[in-house]
């Protein structure tokens, strides 16, 4: 599907070879658009510098793998994308058990900050020279020296509970006071804890603690589930863009195993992916309105969004979490009798979406609240590796649907929408343009929907040791899934990177010197992903007795529940 230029491949090979010199171990091309180099860790920084400076490679994610059972060593892998050249570059270094360290690349690529902290937390390989040594992924009461993604760590292990632990937070600069946002806050639909350092109403810095909802999904995929079960788990990573994650996972496994999904399946995936973008962008527009007190926008966009949810229900049986994806294609067809109804609904949604677009674009008070607010500069967007609408609104023209075509996007090319200003308004404009374009893609996809099978026949078991990288352009930006195949009919390593992961790292720079009133909309304009919270109060329906649980009781209950 992708067009990879042999000259580019040679050029990348030359850069890696020249920069690594005697540290070069091996270079393979596991898939037409994927180059996989193994180098010794002493050359990692030099090669990364070469890729970034000479080839404008964009950092995607780091993957730490415990390959001790295969090679006797850990493996740290940095994943890059050459967007214009439609190429992924994987740089892998073995890290021995005796010296569990690798040089940090965060000073070269600021966007690698969290990725390196994550493999430190999960695998125990320490990034030397990292500017922020604090925990990222693990809970504050997690014991030191226990690394959950090591193969010898059982998925159901429970560390002993610890009390009176607090996140390690930075102190505010002298003269500044702290305004906390979260972990629970009206406009944060997921728990995340931001501490704004303010002087008056002006922000002079901020600190954050996230990963309150870490669910150990990668570990489950690597230790309990099978290839065929993981799509259902992947779909539950996100409540909005679930189909994106299941598609991305399936494509990564298909690539690793050399399976090609049939054309009809790829078209239906495209239609569902675009429907997801439509309802996600409408939802976001409503939330953005709500954040700045514009409830009318919320009410109207969610009213328009509802028919899209019904469409999804008609197609899959569910409003969300369709459960249709499987490795090799789909498990459920889109029935042709549905087409006229789908086209009719889509036409109505288009009419109303354009009405909303015109109303929003012309609203001068909205301009006052969003123009020049939360600016993400083009330079920093590239350095922090921002993705999706925030990147495109800052003039970084990347879109996985064009840069790494998957599903049927090679036959149904989307129109990329970019803006230069990098402020909240630019992100609004980009999302609204994408919304209208997605409606067109659904319409064209339905019209051109080919006949044929919906799932490829998989005759033999997926061989171990293969690598698959897949990227899907979610409404919030690209999702990245990396799969290293293993025995036992399950991946040896499955790495997921959601688009909010790099985008949230861009927030501190965006709120610097901002007014406290602009923080919620700036954060909201990144469209961070949502998840659910727990209940705190129970009512016995027979006796109407109300019982409020204390923090300690809830902690004890959840621990008891997990043990049983």
């Amino acid at each position: 599907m992708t067009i990879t230029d042999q000259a580019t491949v040679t050029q990348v090979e030359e850069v890696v070879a020249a920069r690594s010199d005697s540290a070069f171990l091996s270079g393979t091309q596991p898939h037409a658009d994927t180059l996989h180099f193994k180098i010794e860790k002493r050359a990692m920084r030099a090669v990364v510098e070469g890729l970034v400076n000479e080839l404008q490679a964009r950092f995607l994610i780091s993957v730490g793998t415990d390959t001790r059972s295969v090679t006797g060593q850990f493996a740290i892998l940095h994943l890059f994308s050459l967007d214009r050249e439609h190429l992924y570059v994987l740089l892998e270094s073995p890290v021995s058990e005796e010296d569990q360290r690798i040089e940090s690349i965060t000073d070269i690529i600021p966007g690698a900050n969290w990725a390196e902290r994550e493999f430190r937390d999960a695998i125990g390989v320490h990034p030397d020279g990292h500017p922020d040594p604090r925990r990222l992924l693990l809970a504050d009461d997690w014991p030191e020296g226990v690394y959950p993604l090591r193969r010898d760590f059982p998925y159901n292990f429970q560390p002993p509970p610890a009390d009176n632990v607090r996140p390690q937070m930075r102190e505010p600069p002298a003269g500044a006071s702290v305004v906390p946002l979260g972990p629970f806050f009206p406009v944060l639909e997921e728990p995340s804890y931001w501490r704004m350092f303010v002087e008056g109403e002006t922000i002079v810095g901020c600190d954050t603690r996230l990963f309150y909802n870490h669910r150990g999904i990668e570990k489950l995929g690597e230790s309990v589930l099978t290839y065929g079960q993981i799509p259902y788990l992947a779909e539950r990573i996100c409540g909005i863009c679930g189909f994106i994650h299941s598609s991305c996972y399936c494509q990564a496994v298909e690539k690793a195993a050399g399976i090609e999904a049939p054309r009809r399946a790829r078209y239906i995936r495209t239609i569902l992916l675009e429907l997801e973008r439509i309802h996600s962008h409408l939802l976001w527009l409503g939330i953005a309105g709500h954040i700045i007190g514009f409830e009318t926008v919320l009410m109207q966009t969610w009213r328009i969004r509802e028919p899209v949810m019904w469409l999804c229900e008609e197609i899959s049986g569910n409003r969300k979490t369709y459960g249709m994806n499987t490795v090799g294609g789909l498990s459920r067809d889109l029935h042709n009798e549905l087409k006229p109804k789908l086209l009719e609904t889509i036409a109505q949604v288009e009419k109303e979406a354009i009405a909303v677009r015109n109303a929003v674009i012309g609203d001068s008070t909205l301009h006052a609240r969003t123009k020049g607010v939360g600016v993400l500069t083009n330079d920093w967007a590239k350095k922090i590796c921002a993705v999706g609408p925030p990147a495109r609104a800052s003039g970084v023209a990347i879109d996985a649907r064009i840069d790494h075509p998957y599903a049927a996007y090679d036959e149904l090319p989307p129109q990329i929408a970019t803006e230069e200003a990098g402020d909240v308004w630019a992100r609004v404009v980009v999302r609204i343009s994408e919304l209208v374009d997605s409606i067109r893609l659904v319409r064209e996809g339905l019209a051109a929907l080919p006949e044929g099978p919906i799932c490829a026949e998989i005759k033999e078991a997926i061989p171990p040791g293969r690598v698959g990288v897949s990227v899907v352009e979610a409404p919030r930006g690209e999702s990245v899934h990396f799969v290293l195949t293993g025995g036992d009919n399950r991946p040896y390593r499955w790495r997921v990177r959601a688009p909010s992961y790099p985008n949230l790292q861009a927030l501190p720079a965006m709120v610097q010197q901002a007014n406290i009133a602009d923080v919620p909309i700036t954060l909201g304009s990144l469209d961070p992903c949502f998840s659910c919270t727990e209940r705190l109060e129970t009512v016995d329906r027979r006796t109407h007795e109300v019982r409020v649980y204390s923090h300690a009781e809830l902690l004890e209950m959840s621990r008891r529940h997990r043990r049983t």
Partner: protein
Amino acid sequence: MTVWLIKSFLLCLLNVAAALLLSPLCEGIMRKIRAALHSRIGPPITQPYWDILKLLGKEDLRSTGGVVYAGLPALTLGSVLVLAALVPMGTAAPLAFAGDLIVVLYVAAMSGVAIMLTGFASASPYASIGSSREMMMLLSVEPILAIALVVGAFKARTLALGGIANWQIQNGPSISMLIGGVAFFLALQAVAGKLPFDISEADQEIMGGPLIEQSGPRLALFRWAMWAKQLVFAFLLVEVFFPWPHFGNYLIDLLATIVKVLVVLVLVTVIDVVNPRLRIDQAMGYFMRVGVSSLAALAFAVIGK
């Protein structure tokens, strides 16, 4: 003398009762209109009454002690009710003998100051941000109210609200009073705490601002005070700046006044629905411009227009 006192007292009670009992109904109507513009069904018109009842029946939780903090909700509602007695609401202002528009301006500012103090007294960073915003809003809006009313005083050569209203009825519309009325209306949006000026409460930014720590009966009194305040101010606007058409028949005039008050509240709601919230600096800039424009009203009044 005694008869006069009792009569005044009863009339005061009438105004106070109207402000207390009708303001939740007006709020209910405003919510219904808001819902209609949102494509929602919305709560029943009587919902605000149930809200008040429910909140009054809840436990009184206080984040801090102190007599001042304890008394602030009552002070807020009380100041609004005194204002109701000082303002003509379909009849002559029953407490007019006790004070002219200078007193009205002071009493009108009292509820805002009390809410601000509540925020500063409750130990929450959101409340103190909200209170400082409330203070800035008060400082931006009060001068506009003062200028608009002083235009009337200047025209009618009296500081009594009733006198200004009578002068208006007798002399008909004038450019200066129209400009003053419009400025007063724009300020009303902020006085009522409606969008785009609900900056000091800003649920999504500072979670209710000065009132974040308030719950149960205390919150009920604050809410009630806000609703009563928007109703009293709507009456003030209509009676002083737009008293026409005047029929001379008391009942018809009362009906006309009520219809005009409802029109004002509907307009306030529509503005609330079609606007996002402004930032405090933007709102202050806006009211600065409104204030300067309202000075034009004063200039027109000086040249007799």
